[in-house]
C-alpha cells in the first residue's frame, strides 16, 4: 500500500458517484465521496437511516459502486459485525464500513456501537456529524451544540435553542480502547486523507468522526461549507486528533483561538444567541481548549474565564492530551 500524503495523491476512481440527491454544499457528500475514494472497490458499505441512505440508495438506483446494505437506524455496529463475520468465514478481506449520522451514533445507535467497539470487531465506523437529525427535518441530537436552534429546540420566548452541550463521543469511544479513533475535518484535507488511510490499514475496531456542515440545518451559505468547517477548528468547536493504540496525538493545533462568534456568525442556527449564551458557550470552549491543547499558552479569548484544569474523567488525562 502506497501511503497517501496529500490531495494530489488521492485516487480518482469514485466509489460514491455523482447523481446523488444531496443538497448543494452538503458536507456529508464531500466526506463520503472522499472516504469512499480512499477505501476503494474492496469495500462493503452499511448505511443506517440517515440523509445518506435517502440521497444514495433509492430503488432502483444507487450511488455506491460497492455492495451496500440498509436496514434500520440503531444497528450500524451490529449489522457491520454480522457482515464482517460472514465475509471472514468466506475468506473475503473487504473493508466493512458503517457510514452513520450523529443521531445514529450519539443517540439511538450508541448501544450497538459500544458493543462493536467493546468486542473490537474488525470494522470501520464513520460518524458523519451534522449535529442533528437533519434527514427528518432538523431536530436536536446529542451532537447538537449548545444554543443552536433546531425544530425541537426552537427559539421561544422562555427558552432559546438547545440548553445542553455537545456530547463528547470521542471520549466515549476512547474509553473502549480501540486500535484507532480520529476526528476529521473536510477543511483539513491532507490530515483527512492520512486518517482515512490509517483507519483503512488497521485491523480491529476503527472510528472516524467527521464534522459535516449541513446547509439547511445550519442555515448556512452553500459556498461556505468548507469555510465553516475550518472556522470550527480555529475556534475550538472542533478539534483534530487521533488515538492510536491508546496514545492520543493532536494532528492540528490552531496558533491562536479565535472567538466563537467568528464561527457562530456564519450560521443562521445561532443567530438568536445573546451575550449571556455566547459567553456560556465560550467558557465551555475554553475549558475544552485547555483540556485538549494544554494550558501553557494563555488564550486572550479566554482571559475573562477562570482557567479550567480539572480532569473530568481518568481517561481524559490519559487520552486527551499531551
Amino acid at each position, binding site marked *: 500500500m502506497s501511503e497517501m500524503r496529500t490531495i494530489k495523491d488521492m485516487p480518482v476512481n469514485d466509489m460514491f458517484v455523482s447523481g446523488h440527491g444531496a443538497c448543494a454544499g452538503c458536507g456529508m457528500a464531500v466526506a463520503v465521496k472522499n472516504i469512499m475514494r480512499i477505501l476503494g472497490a474492496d469495500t462493503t458499505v452499511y448505511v443506517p437511516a440517515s440523509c445518506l441512505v435517502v440521497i444514495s440508495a*433509492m430503488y432502483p438506483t444507487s450511488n*455506491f459502486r460497492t455492495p451496500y*446494505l*440498509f*436496514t*434500520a437506524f440503531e444497528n450500524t455496529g451490529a449489522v457491520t459485525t454480522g457482515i464482517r463475520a*460472514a465475509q471472514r468465514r*468466506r475468506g473475503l478481506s473487504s473493508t466493512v464500513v458503517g457510514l452513520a449520522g450523529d443521531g445514529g451514533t450519539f443517540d439511538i445507535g450508541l448501544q450497538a456501537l459500544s458493543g462493536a467497539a467493546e468486542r473490537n470487531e474488525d470494522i470501520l465506523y464513520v460518524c458523519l456529524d451534522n449535529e442533528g437529525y437533519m434527514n427528518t427535518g432538523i431536530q436536536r441530537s446529542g451532537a447538537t451544540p449548545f444554543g443552536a436552534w433546531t425544530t425541537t429546540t426552537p427559539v421561544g420566548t422562555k427558552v432559546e435553542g438547545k440548553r445542553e452541550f455537545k456530547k463528547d463521543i470521542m471520549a466515549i469511544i476512547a474509553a473502549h480502547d480501540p486500535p484507532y479513533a480520529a476526528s476529521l475535518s473536510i477543511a483539513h484535507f491532507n490530515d483527512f486523507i492520512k486518517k482515512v488511510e490509517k483507519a483503512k490499514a488497521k485491523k480491529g475496531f476503527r472510528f472516524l468522526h467527521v464534522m459535516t456542515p449541513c446547509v439547511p440545518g445550519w442555515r448556512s451559505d452553500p459556498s461556505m461549507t468548507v469555510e465553516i468547517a475550518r472556522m470550527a477548528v480555529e475556534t475550538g468547536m472542533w478539534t483534530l486528533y487521533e488515538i492510536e493504540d491508546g496514545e492520543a496525538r493532536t494532528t492540528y493545533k490552531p496558533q491562536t483561538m479565535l472567538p466563537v462568534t467568528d464561527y457562530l456568525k456564519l450560521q443562521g442556527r445561532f443567530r438568536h444567541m445573546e451575550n449571556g449564551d455566547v459567553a456560556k458557550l465560550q467558557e465551555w470552549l475554553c475549558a475544552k481548549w485547555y483540556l485538549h491543547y494544554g494550558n501553557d499558552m494563555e488564550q486572550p479569548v479566554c482571559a475573562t474565564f477562570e482557567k479550567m484544569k480539572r480532569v473530568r474523567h481518568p481517561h481524559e488525562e490519559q487520552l486527551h492530551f499531551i
Partner: protein
Amino acid sequence: MKVMVISADHAVAYAAKLARTEVVPSFPITPQTLIVEQLAEFINDGELDADFIPADSEHSVMSMAVGASAGGVRVFTATSSQGLALMHEMLYAVPQSRLPIVMANVNRSLGAASGIWVEYNDSMAERDSGWLQVYVEDNQEALDATLMAFRLAEDRRVLLPVMVCLDGFILSHTVERVDLPEQEEVDRFLPKFVPYNMLDPSDPKLMNPIVPPEYAMEMRYQLDRAVEHSREVIAEVDELFAREFGRSYGGLIDTYRLEDAEYAMLTLGTATGLARQVVDELRSEGKKAGLIKLRFMRPFPFKELCAACRDLKALGVFDRSASFNGGGPVYTEVAAALCNVPTTVTGHVAGIGGRDITPEHMRDMYDIVEKASRGEKVRSVTWHGLRGDME
C-alpha cells in the same frame, strides 16, 4: 443415530449444530438461554466451526443475523418473549430481504403482568412479519422442525426466515428421549448453504434500499407469493425428512383419530399431547372425538383445515394467547378459514401466563365442542381454568 435424554432447548442446539450453522449471534433470555449456552459450548469445544457473537441486545442479534446472512453464511439464533419484541423492527427486514435465517423462539409471556412462563403472545404478535412459524409438540419435534426449517428456508422457491416456536419450560427445560441423527444423514438432507444474494465486492449489489411506492407493492406481493410457495415446499421437506430419518409430521397440520370424528379440538404446542390423551378417553367412552394439530401458523393451512373439517359438526380452537378482542389469534384465523364450511367453531383460551392446562380443562373444552356439535347453544369463546368468580 444416537439416543439422548435432553431438553428441547438442547435438542434445538443439537439441530443447529448438525445443520452446520456458521454464525450464531446471541443474547441471553430465559427460557431460551440453554440453547445459546449449548452452542457456545459446542463452538468452544471445537465440535462446531462457527462464529459465536455475544451481542448487546436482541435488536443487535437480529441486526447481526441480517448482516451475516446478507454476507452469505448460514445463520441461527434463538430468543424468547421480550427479546422477540425487541427484535420486532429487525424481523421485518429479513423476509423482505429474502434471507433464510432460522430462529428458535421459546414461547414465554410478554409483559406487563410479566412472567417467564409459556404463552404464545410473543410469537403470535409477529405472525404478519413474513416469517414462517412452526409450533412443536415435543423435544423430538423441536429438533426435527429446526432441521427442516433450514431446508425450507433455503429452498429457492421460498427464501424466507423460519421461526421454530416451542413451549417455555414445558419443553425448553424438560428432558425427554430424543433420537439424534448422524451428521452424514443431516448432510444428505441439508446440503451446504449457497446464498442466493450476498454482499460481495466482486459482484456489488444494493440490498434493501429505500423503495418508493412505484415498486414497494410488487415487492410485498412477491413476498406474499413466496409464503404461498412455501406450502408445497413444507410438504416436500416433510416427505424428504421422513425418507431420511423415518419420522413425519404431516406438513402444515396433523390429525389424530379424525377419520370418523363428529367433533374435534384444534391445538398447537404441548397442549396437543394432552388432547391426544383426552381423545383416547372420549373414544373409549364411545364418543366420536378427534384432534387437529396446527403445526404452521404461517403459512396458515386454510385449504387443509377446510378439507379436514369437512365432516366435522363442530371444532374447538385452543389458544395459548388472547387478542383481547373476544378470543385468541388462532381462533379468529380458523374461524375465517372455515367461514364457508358448515362446522361450528368455538374458541378456548387456556394456559395463559404458563398456567397448567389439566386433563379436566381439556375435557371441558371437548364437552363444550360436543354440545356445539349437537346444535346446543354454547359460548363462542371460553377461558378455561380461571380461578374464582370472574364473570
